[in-house]
Protein backbone atom coordinates (compact mmCIF):
# COMPACT_ATOMS: atom_id res chain seq x y z
CA UNK A 1 0.00 0.00 0.00
CA UNK A 2 1.31 3.36 -0.97
CA UNK A 3 2.24 5.74 1.82
CA UNK A 4 4.07 9.04 1.92
CA UNK A 5 7.78 9.10 2.86
CA UNK A 6 8.50 9.06 6.59
CA UNK A 7 11.50 9.34 8.93
CA UNK A 8 11.75 5.57 8.93
CA UNK A 9 12.64 5.58 5.24
CA UNK A 10 15.89 7.44 5.91
CA UNK A 11 18.78 5.29 7.07
CA UNK A 12 20.25 5.91 10.48
CA UNK A 13 23.99 6.02 10.95
CA UNK A 14 23.44 3.67 13.89
CA UNK A 15 26.23 5.04 16.04
CA UNK A 16 27.57 8.29 17.33
CA UNK A 17 30.63 9.29 15.28
CA UNK A 18 32.04 11.29 18.21
CA UNK A 19 31.64 8.32 20.60
CA UNK A 20 33.30 6.02 18.08
CA UNK A 21 36.23 8.43 17.76
CA UNK A 22 36.57 8.75 21.54
CA UNK A 23 36.42 4.96 22.00
CA UNK A 24 39.12 4.52 19.33
CA UNK A 25 41.27 7.08 21.16
CA UNK A 26 40.86 5.21 24.47
CA UNK A 27 41.71 1.91 22.79
CA UNK A 28 44.85 3.41 21.20
CA UNK A 29 45.90 4.77 24.61
CA UNK A 30 45.46 1.33 26.21
CA UNK A 31 47.44 -0.32 23.41
CA UNK A 32 50.24 2.20 24.04
CA UNK A 33 50.22 1.29 27.73
CA UNK A 34 50.44 -2.37 26.79
CA UNK A 35 53.42 -1.68 24.57
CA UNK A 36 55.06 0.36 27.32
CA UNK A 37 54.71 -2.57 29.73
CA UNK A 38 56.11 -4.96 27.14
CA UNK A 39 59.05 -2.66 26.47
CA UNK A 40 59.74 -2.32 30.19
CA UNK A 41 59.86 -6.12 30.45
CA UNK A 42 62.07 -6.35 27.40
CA UNK A 43 64.46 -3.69 28.71
CA UNK A 44 64.59 -5.33 32.12
CA UNK A 45 65.44 -8.65 30.53
CA UNK A 46 68.12 -7.07 28.32
CA UNK A 47 69.69 -5.53 31.43
CA UNK A 48 69.97 -8.81 33.32
CA UNK A 49 73.53 -9.63 34.44
CA UNK A 50 75.44 -11.98 32.15
CA UNK A 51 75.64 -14.51 34.96
CA UNK A 52 71.86 -14.92 34.84
CA UNK A 53 71.55 -14.89 31.06
CA UNK A 54 72.90 -18.38 30.52
CA UNK A 55 71.97 -19.83 27.11
CA UNK A 56 69.15 -21.93 28.51
CA UNK A 57 67.38 -19.10 30.29
CA UNK A 58 68.06 -16.77 27.37
CA UNK A 59 66.42 -19.21 24.96
CA UNK A 60 63.42 -19.42 27.26
CA UNK A 61 63.05 -15.72 27.85
CA UNK A 62 63.68 -14.67 24.28
CA UNK A 63 60.76 -16.87 23.32
CA UNK A 64 58.51 -14.85 25.60
CA UNK A 65 59.79 -11.37 26.06
CA UNK A 66 60.90 -10.30 22.62
CA UNK A 67 57.91 -11.64 20.63
CA UNK A 68 55.59 -10.13 23.23
CA UNK A 69 57.32 -6.75 22.83
CA UNK A 70 57.21 -7.00 19.03
CA UNK A 71 53.54 -7.91 18.97
CA UNK A 72 52.70 -5.24 21.52
CA UNK A 73 54.38 -2.72 19.20
CA UNK A 74 52.35 -4.07 16.26
CA UNK A 75 49.16 -3.91 18.27
CA UNK A 76 49.89 -0.32 19.31
CA UNK A 77 50.61 0.58 15.67
CA UNK A 78 47.36 -1.04 14.52
CA UNK A 79 45.37 0.71 17.26
CA UNK A 80 46.85 4.05 16.21
CA UNK A 81 45.99 3.34 12.57
CA UNK A 82 42.46 2.43 13.59
CA UNK A 83 42.14 5.67 15.48
CA UNK A 84 43.56 7.61 12.49
CA UNK A 85 41.10 5.96 10.08
CA UNK A 86 38.14 6.71 12.33
CA UNK A 87 39.32 10.28 12.94
CA UNK A 88 39.72 10.82 9.23
CA UNK A 89 36.20 9.53 8.61
CA UNK A 90 34.77 11.62 11.45
CA UNK A 91 33.98 14.82 9.41
CA UNK A 92 32.17 12.80 6.72
CA UNK A 93 30.23 10.86 9.35
CA UNK A 94 29.26 14.06 11.15
CA UNK A 95 28.17 15.57 7.81
CA UNK A 96 25.96 12.53 7.19
CA UNK A 97 24.49 12.96 10.63
CA UNK A 98 23.66 16.62 9.92
CA UNK A 99 22.25 15.73 6.52
CA UNK A 100 19.95 13.19 8.07
CA UNK A 101 18.69 15.68 10.63
CA UNK A 102 17.93 18.14 7.86
CA UNK A 103 16.18 15.53 5.71
CA UNK A 104 14.06 14.27 8.58
CA UNK A 105 13.04 17.81 9.44
CA UNK A 106 11.83 18.38 5.88
CA UNK A 107 9.94 15.09 5.81
CA UNK A 108 8.15 15.98 9.03
CA UNK A 109 7.27 19.43 7.67
CA UNK A 110 5.94 17.85 4.46
CA UNK A 111 3.77 15.43 6.37
CA UNK A 112 2.19 18.36 8.19
CA UNK A 113 0.91 19.65 4.87
CA UNK A 114 -2.01 17.29 4.79
CA UNK A 115 -3.97 16.98 1.53
CA UNK A 116 -7.07 17.99 3.43
CA UNK A 117 -5.89 21.56 3.29
CA UNK A 118 -6.74 21.66 -0.41
CA UNK A 119 -6.87 19.04 -3.15
CA UNK A 120 -5.49 21.68 -5.53
CA UNK A 121 -2.09 21.31 -3.92
CA UNK A 122 -1.90 17.56 -4.46
CA UNK A 123 0.25 17.67 -7.67
CA UNK A 124 2.74 19.98 -5.98
CA UNK A 125 2.84 17.73 -2.96
CA UNK A 126 3.45 14.68 -5.15
CA UNK A 127 6.36 16.42 -6.82
CA UNK A 128 7.83 17.47 -3.46
CA UNK A 129 7.41 13.97 -2.10
CA UNK A 130 9.22 12.52 -5.13
CA UNK A 131 12.11 14.90 -4.54
CA UNK A 132 12.33 13.93 -0.88
CA UNK A 133 12.27 10.26 -1.84
CA UNK A 134 15.12 10.82 -4.27
CA UNK A 135 17.11 12.70 -1.67
CA UNK A 136 16.41 10.02 0.92
CA UNK A 137 17.58 7.29 -1.43
CA UNK A 138 20.78 9.21 -2.17
CA UNK A 139 21.35 9.72 1.54
CA UNK A 140 20.88 6.02 2.23
CA UNK A 141 23.43 5.17 -0.47
CA UNK A 142 25.85 7.72 1.04
CA UNK A 143 25.48 6.15 4.51
CA UNK A 144 26.07 2.67 3.13
CA UNK A 145 29.04 3.78 1.02
CA UNK A 146 30.63 5.76 3.86
CA UNK A 147 30.35 3.03 6.47
CA UNK A 148 31.43 0.36 3.99
CA UNK A 149 34.47 2.44 3.01
CA UNK A 150 35.31 2.93 6.69
CA UNK A 151 34.89 -0.79 7.33
CA UNK A 152 37.16 -1.60 4.38
CA UNK A 153 39.88 0.67 5.73
CA UNK A 154 39.61 -0.92 9.17
CA UNK A 155 39.92 -4.36 7.61
CA UNK A 156 43.01 -3.21 5.73
CA UNK A 157 44.69 -2.52 9.10
CA UNK A 158 44.20 -6.18 9.92
CA UNK A 159 46.42 -7.07 6.98
CA UNK A 160 43.98 -8.66 4.55
CA UNK A 161 40.42 -9.11 3.37
CA UNK A 162 39.42 -10.79 6.58
CA UNK A 163 42.05 -8.99 8.62
CA UNK A 164 43.70 -12.18 9.82
CA UNK A 165 46.54 -12.99 7.47
CA UNK A 166 49.26 -10.76 8.86
CA UNK A 167 49.02 -11.63 12.53
CA UNK A 168 49.50 -15.24 13.62
CA UNK A 169 48.40 -15.83 17.15
CA UNK A 170 51.43 -15.67 19.41
CA UNK A 171 49.54 -17.37 22.21
CA UNK A 172 50.02 -20.72 20.53
CA UNK A 173 53.31 -20.18 18.73
CA UNK A 174 55.61 -18.77 21.35
CA UNK A 175 55.10 -20.75 24.53
CA UNK A 176 55.06 -24.10 22.79
CA UNK A 177 58.44 -23.38 21.24
CA UNK A 178 59.83 -21.99 24.48
CA UNK A 179 58.66 -24.86 26.58
CA UNK A 180 59.95 -27.39 24.07
CA UNK A 181 63.30 -25.63 24.06
CA UNK A 182 63.38 -25.56 27.84
CA UNK A 183 62.49 -29.22 28.20
CA UNK A 184 65.02 -30.25 25.57
CA UNK A 185 67.71 -28.45 27.47
CA UNK A 186 66.63 -29.47 30.95
CA UNK A 187 69.66 -31.74 31.32
CA UNK A 188 71.94 -28.97 30.15
CA UNK A 189 70.44 -26.59 32.67
CA UNK A 190 70.99 -29.14 35.42
CA UNK A 191 74.57 -29.55 34.27
CA UNK A 192 74.92 -25.80 34.41
CA UNK A 193 73.81 -25.76 38.04
CA UNK A 194 76.15 -28.62 38.81
CA UNK A 195 78.90 -26.65 37.12
CA UNK A 196 78.06 -23.61 39.23
CA UNK A 197 78.35 -25.84 42.30
CA UNK A 198 81.69 -27.24 41.16
CA UNK A 199 83.05 -23.85 40.23
CA UNK A 200 81.76 -22.49 43.51
CA UNK A 201 83.69 -25.24 45.28
CA UNK A 202 86.77 -24.37 43.31
CA UNK A 203 86.42 -20.68 44.02
CA UNK A 204 85.76 -21.18 47.71
CA UNK A 205 88.42 -23.85 48.06
CA UNK A 206 90.84 -21.76 46.02
CA UNK A 207 90.12 -18.53 47.81
CA UNK A 208 90.41 -20.06 51.25
CA UNK A 209 93.45 -22.09 50.42
CA UNK A 210 94.99 -19.11 48.64
CA UNK A 211 94.33 -16.97 51.69
CA UNK A 212 96.29 -19.35 53.84
CA UNK A 213 99.00 -19.74 51.31
CA UNK A 214 98.42 -22.93 49.38
CA UNK A 215 95.90 -22.27 46.63
CA UNK A 216 96.86 -25.00 44.16
CA UNK A 217 96.20 -28.06 46.27
CA UNK A 218 93.16 -26.50 47.92
CA UNK A 219 91.59 -26.01 44.55
CA UNK A 220 92.17 -29.52 43.40
CA UNK A 221 90.54 -31.07 46.41
CA UNK A 222 87.85 -28.49 47.03
CA UNK A 223 86.21 -28.24 43.67
CA UNK A 224 87.76 -30.32 40.97
CA UNK A 225 87.77 -27.33 38.63
CA UNK A 226 90.94 -25.68 39.76
CA UNK A 227 92.03 -24.53 36.33
CA UNK A 228 89.61 -21.65 36.61
CA UNK A 229 91.61 -20.05 39.38
CA UNK A 230 95.33 -19.59 39.17
CA UNK A 231 97.10 -21.60 41.84
CA UNK A 232 98.86 -19.58 44.45
CA UNK A 233 102.44 -20.35 45.40
CA UNK A 234 102.22 -21.16 49.09
CA UNK A 235 103.99 -23.38 51.59
CA UNK A 236 103.35 -27.11 51.76
CA UNK A 237 101.77 -26.72 55.19
CA UNK A 238 99.52 -23.99 53.87
CA UNK A 239 98.56 -26.20 50.97
CA UNK A 240 97.58 -29.01 53.28
CA UNK A 241 95.39 -26.78 55.42
CA UNK A 242 93.95 -25.19 52.30
CA UNK A 243 93.20 -28.65 50.98
CA UNK A 244 91.33 -29.59 54.13
CA UNK A 245 89.27 -26.41 54.06
CA UNK A 246 88.71 -26.81 50.35
CA UNK A 247 87.44 -30.32 50.92
CA UNK A 248 84.93 -29.11 53.52
CA UNK A 249 83.78 -26.40 51.17
CA UNK A 250 83.53 -28.94 48.38
CA UNK A 251 81.23 -31.14 50.49
CA UNK A 252 79.09 -28.15 51.38
CA UNK A 253 78.89 -27.17 47.74
CA UNK A 254 77.74 -30.69 46.97
CA UNK A 255 74.74 -29.91 49.18
CA UNK A 256 74.17 -26.82 47.07
CA UNK A 257 74.02 -29.08 44.03
CA UNK A 258 71.20 -31.06 45.66
CA UNK A 259 69.37 -27.84 46.49
CA UNK A 260 69.79 -26.71 42.90
CA UNK A 261 68.39 -29.97 41.60
CA UNK A 262 65.33 -29.40 43.77
CA UNK A 263 65.06 -25.87 42.42
CA UNK A 264 65.28 -27.23 38.90
CA UNK A 265 62.34 -29.50 39.58
CA UNK A 266 60.34 -26.55 40.91
CA UNK A 267 61.36 -24.57 37.86
CA UNK A 268 60.20 -27.34 35.54
CA UNK A 269 56.94 -27.58 37.45
CA UNK A 270 56.46 -23.82 37.06
CA UNK A 271 56.95 -24.16 33.32
CA UNK A 272 54.45 -27.01 33.27
CA UNK A 273 51.54 -24.57 33.35
CA UNK A 274 52.40 -23.24 29.91
CA UNK A 275 50.90 -26.14 28.06
CA UNK A 276 53.25 -29.01 27.24
CA UNK A 277 51.85 -32.48 27.80
CA UNK A 278 52.35 -33.55 31.40
CA UNK A 279 53.95 -36.81 30.32
CA UNK A 280 56.87 -34.97 28.78
CA UNK A 281 57.64 -33.40 32.13
CA UNK A 282 58.14 -36.83 33.61
CA UNK A 283 60.29 -38.21 30.84
CA UNK A 284 63.55 -37.82 32.69
CA UNK A 285 62.14 -39.13 35.95
CA UNK A 286 60.70 -42.24 34.35
CA UNK A 287 64.00 -43.10 32.70
CA UNK A 288 66.08 -42.79 35.91
CA UNK A 289 67.69 -46.12 36.80
CA UNK A 290 68.53 -47.83 40.07
CA UNK A 291 71.73 -49.49 41.25
CA UNK A 292 70.16 -52.86 40.46
CA UNK A 293 69.54 -51.79 36.85
CA UNK A 294 73.15 -50.70 36.56
CA UNK A 295 74.44 -54.02 37.98
CA UNK A 296 72.30 -55.94 35.49
CA UNK A 297 73.61 -53.79 32.67
CA UNK A 298 77.25 -54.28 33.76
CA UNK A 299 76.83 -58.05 33.70
CA UNK A 300 76.08 -57.86 30.00
CA UNK A 301 79.37 -56.12 29.23
CA UNK A 302 82.58 -58.16 28.67
CA UNK A 303 84.57 -58.80 31.86
CA UNK A 304 87.92 -57.05 32.40
CA UNK A 305 90.76 -58.04 34.70
CA UNK A 306 88.33 -58.36 37.62
CA UNK A 307 84.64 -59.06 37.91
CA UNK A 308 84.03 -55.44 38.97
CA UNK A 309 85.69 -54.16 35.80
CA UNK A 310 83.80 -54.24 32.53
CA UNK A 311 84.94 -53.30 29.08
CA UNK A 312 83.69 -51.37 26.07
CA UNK A 313 85.57 -51.31 22.74
CA UNK A 314 86.17 -47.56 22.31
CA UNK A 315 85.61 -44.07 23.68
CA UNK A 316 82.43 -43.58 21.74
CA UNK A 317 80.96 -46.74 23.28
CA UNK A 318 82.07 -45.53 26.72
CA UNK A 319 80.36 -42.17 26.18
CA UNK A 320 77.21 -43.92 25.00
CA UNK A 321 77.27 -46.20 28.02
CA UNK A 322 77.62 -43.22 30.36
CA UNK A 323 74.78 -41.39 28.62
CA UNK A 324 72.57 -44.46 28.88
CA UNK A 325 73.17 -45.33 32.53
CA UNK A 326 72.95 -41.73 33.73
CA UNK A 327 69.83 -40.82 31.77
CA UNK A 328 67.40 -38.97 34.02
CA UNK A 329 69.75 -39.07 37.02
CA UNK A 330 70.52 -36.10 39.26
CA UNK A 331 73.83 -34.32 38.52
CA UNK A 332 76.23 -34.56 41.45
CA UNK A 333 79.76 -33.63 42.43
CA UNK A 334 82.26 -36.46 42.77
CA UNK A 335 85.84 -35.55 43.46
CA UNK A 336 88.16 -36.44 40.63
CA UNK A 337 85.38 -36.86 38.10
CA UNK A 338 84.68 -34.46 35.27
CA UNK A 339 81.01 -35.26 35.47
CA UNK A 340 78.94 -37.34 37.82
CA UNK A 341 75.38 -38.22 38.77
CA UNK A 342 73.71 -39.77 41.78
CA UNK A 343 70.73 -42.12 41.53
CA UNK A 344 67.88 -42.02 43.99
CA UNK A 345 69.20 -45.11 45.80
CA UNK A 346 72.57 -43.42 46.39
CA UNK A 347 74.46 -45.11 43.55
CA UNK A 348 77.05 -42.70 42.15
CA UNK A 349 78.29 -42.76 38.57
CA UNK A 350 81.18 -40.60 37.47
CA UNK A 351 83.32 -40.12 34.39
CA UNK A 352 87.09 -39.61 34.62
CA UNK A 353 89.24 -38.57 31.70
CA UNK A 354 92.24 -40.46 33.08
CA UNK A 355 92.67 -43.58 35.15
CA UNK A 356 95.55 -45.78 36.34
CA UNK A 357 94.92 -48.00 33.39
CA UNK A 358 95.48 -44.94 31.26
CA UNK A 359 92.20 -44.11 29.62
CA UNK A 360 88.80 -42.63 30.15
CA UNK A 361 86.81 -44.56 32.74
CA UNK A 362 83.37 -44.72 34.24
CA UNK A 363 83.35 -45.31 38.02
CA UNK A 364 80.27 -46.68 39.73
CA UNK A 365 79.92 -46.64 43.50
CA UNK A 366 77.09 -48.82 44.79
CA UNK A 367 75.93 -47.98 48.32
CA UNK A 368 77.60 -50.33 50.82
CA UNK A 369 79.96 -51.87 48.23
CA UNK A 370 83.65 -52.23 49.17
CA UNK A 371 85.01 -51.37 45.76
CA UNK A 372 83.97 -49.24 42.88
CA UNK A 373 82.87 -50.95 39.73
CA UNK A 374 84.44 -49.56 36.60
CA UNK A 375 83.94 -49.52 32.87
CA UNK A 376 87.22 -49.23 30.93
CA UNK A 377 88.00 -49.03 27.26
CA UNK A 378 89.60 -52.27 26.10
CA UNK A 379 89.25 -55.61 24.41
CA UNK A 380 88.51 -58.72 26.50
CA UNK A 381 91.48 -61.10 26.83
Amino acid sequence: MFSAISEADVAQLGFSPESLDEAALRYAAQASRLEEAAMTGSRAWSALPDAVAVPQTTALMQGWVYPAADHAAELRGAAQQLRAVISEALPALLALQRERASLVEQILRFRCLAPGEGWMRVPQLVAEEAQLRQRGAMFNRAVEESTTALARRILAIGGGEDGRAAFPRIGTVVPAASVRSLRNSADQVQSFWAEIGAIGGAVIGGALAGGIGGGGLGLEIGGGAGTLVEPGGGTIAGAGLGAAIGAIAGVAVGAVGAGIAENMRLFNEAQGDVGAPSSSRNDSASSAKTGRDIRERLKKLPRGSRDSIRLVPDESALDNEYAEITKGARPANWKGHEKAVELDDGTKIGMREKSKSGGKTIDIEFPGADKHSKIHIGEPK
Partner: protein
Amino acid sequence: MRAARIHLDGDAAAHIATVMDAAGSDAATAAASARAAFAELLDTARACPALVAALSAFEHARAGHGAAIGEHLGEAGQSVTTVLAMFERADSELGHAAEIGA
Protein backbone atom coordinates in the same frame (compact mmCIF):
# COMPACT_ATOMS: atom_id res chain seq x y z
CA MET B 1 84.92 -16.75 39.17
CA ARG B 2 81.31 -17.08 38.11
CA ALA B 3 79.98 -17.71 41.61
CA ALA B 4 81.60 -14.54 42.90
CA ARG B 5 80.10 -12.65 39.99
CA ILE B 6 76.63 -13.89 40.79
CA HIS B 7 77.15 -12.69 44.33
CA LEU B 8 78.19 -9.25 43.11
CA ASP B 9 75.24 -9.07 40.75
CA GLY B 10 72.74 -10.25 43.32
CA ASP B 11 71.24 -6.84 44.15
CA ALA B 12 70.98 -5.81 40.51
CA ALA B 13 69.42 -9.17 39.62
CA ALA B 14 66.86 -8.86 42.42
CA HIS B 15 66.01 -5.34 41.26
CA ILE B 16 65.56 -6.51 37.68
CA ALA B 17 63.38 -9.40 38.84
CA THR B 18 61.15 -6.88 40.58
CA VAL B 19 61.01 -4.69 37.47
CA MET B 20 60.31 -7.69 35.25
CA ASP B 21 57.58 -8.96 37.53
CA ALA B 22 56.00 -5.51 37.64
CA ALA B 23 56.19 -5.29 33.83
CA GLY B 24 54.40 -8.63 33.53
CA SER B 25 51.74 -7.47 35.95
CA ASP B 26 51.40 -4.08 34.20
CA ALA B 27 51.12 -5.81 30.85
CA ALA B 28 48.36 -8.10 32.13
CA THR B 29 46.45 -5.07 33.49
CA ALA B 30 47.06 -3.08 30.29
CA ALA B 31 45.90 -6.02 28.19
CA ALA B 32 42.67 -6.25 30.21
CA SER B 33 42.13 -2.48 29.82
CA ALA B 34 42.82 -2.67 26.08
CA ARG B 35 40.26 -5.45 25.74
CA ALA B 36 37.70 -3.44 27.70
CA ALA B 37 38.41 -0.37 25.54
CA PHE B 38 37.96 -2.40 22.40
CA ALA B 39 34.70 -3.88 23.67
CA GLU B 40 33.52 -0.31 24.20
CA LEU B 41 34.54 0.55 20.63
CA LEU B 42 32.66 -2.43 19.29
CA ASP B 43 29.67 -1.57 21.44
CA THR B 44 29.67 1.99 20.08
CA ALA B 45 29.42 0.69 16.53
CA ARG B 46 26.90 -2.03 17.36
CA ALA B 47 24.02 -0.71 15.19
CA CYS B 48 26.13 -0.51 12.04
CA PRO B 49 26.58 -4.03 10.64
CA ALA B 50 29.46 -3.11 8.30
CA LEU B 51 31.46 -1.51 11.12
CA VAL B 52 30.69 -4.28 13.59
CA ALA B 53 31.96 -6.86 11.07
CA ALA B 54 35.09 -4.84 10.32
CA LEU B 55 35.87 -4.17 13.98
CA SER B 56 35.22 -7.79 14.88
CA ALA B 57 37.73 -8.86 12.23
CA PHE B 58 40.17 -6.28 13.53
CA GLU B 59 39.71 -7.55 17.06
CA HIS B 60 40.23 -11.09 15.91
CA ALA B 61 43.40 -10.09 14.11
CA ARG B 62 44.78 -7.69 16.70
CA ALA B 63 43.02 -7.16 19.95
CA GLY B 64 42.97 -10.84 20.90
CA HIS B 65 46.73 -10.65 21.02
CA GLY B 66 46.66 -8.04 23.72
CA ALA B 67 45.67 -10.73 26.19
CA ALA B 68 48.34 -13.09 24.89
CA ILE B 69 51.01 -10.40 25.19
CA GLY B 70 50.00 -9.68 28.76
CA GLU B 71 49.94 -13.34 29.65
CA HIS B 72 53.34 -13.87 28.06
CA LEU B 73 54.91 -11.02 29.91
CA GLY B 74 53.31 -12.19 33.13
CA GLU B 75 54.78 -15.64 32.60
CA ALA B 76 58.12 -14.16 31.63
CA GLY B 77 58.14 -12.07 34.80
CA GLN B 78 57.41 -15.14 36.90
CA SER B 79 60.10 -17.11 35.09
CA VAL B 80 62.70 -14.43 35.68
CA THR B 81 61.72 -14.37 39.33
CA THR B 82 62.03 -18.16 39.51
CA VAL B 83 65.41 -18.18 37.77
CA LEU B 84 66.72 -15.42 39.99
CA ALA B 85 65.39 -17.11 43.11
CA MET B 86 67.43 -20.14 42.11
CA PHE B 87 70.51 -17.98 41.68
CA GLU B 88 69.94 -16.28 44.99
CA ARG B 89 69.56 -19.60 46.72
CA ALA B 90 72.67 -20.99 45.06
CA ASP B 91 74.51 -17.81 45.95
CA SER B 92 73.42 -17.91 49.56
CA GLU B 93 74.27 -21.58 49.89
CA LEU B 94 77.66 -20.99 48.35
CA GLY B 95 78.14 -18.22 50.92
CA HIS B 96 77.10 -20.65 53.62
CA ALA B 97 79.58 -23.17 52.23
CA ALA B 98 82.29 -20.54 52.51
CA GLU B 99 81.37 -19.97 56.14
CA ILE B 100 81.60 -23.69 56.85
CA GLY B 101 84.96 -23.70 55.11
CA ALA B 102 86.16 -20.79 57.18
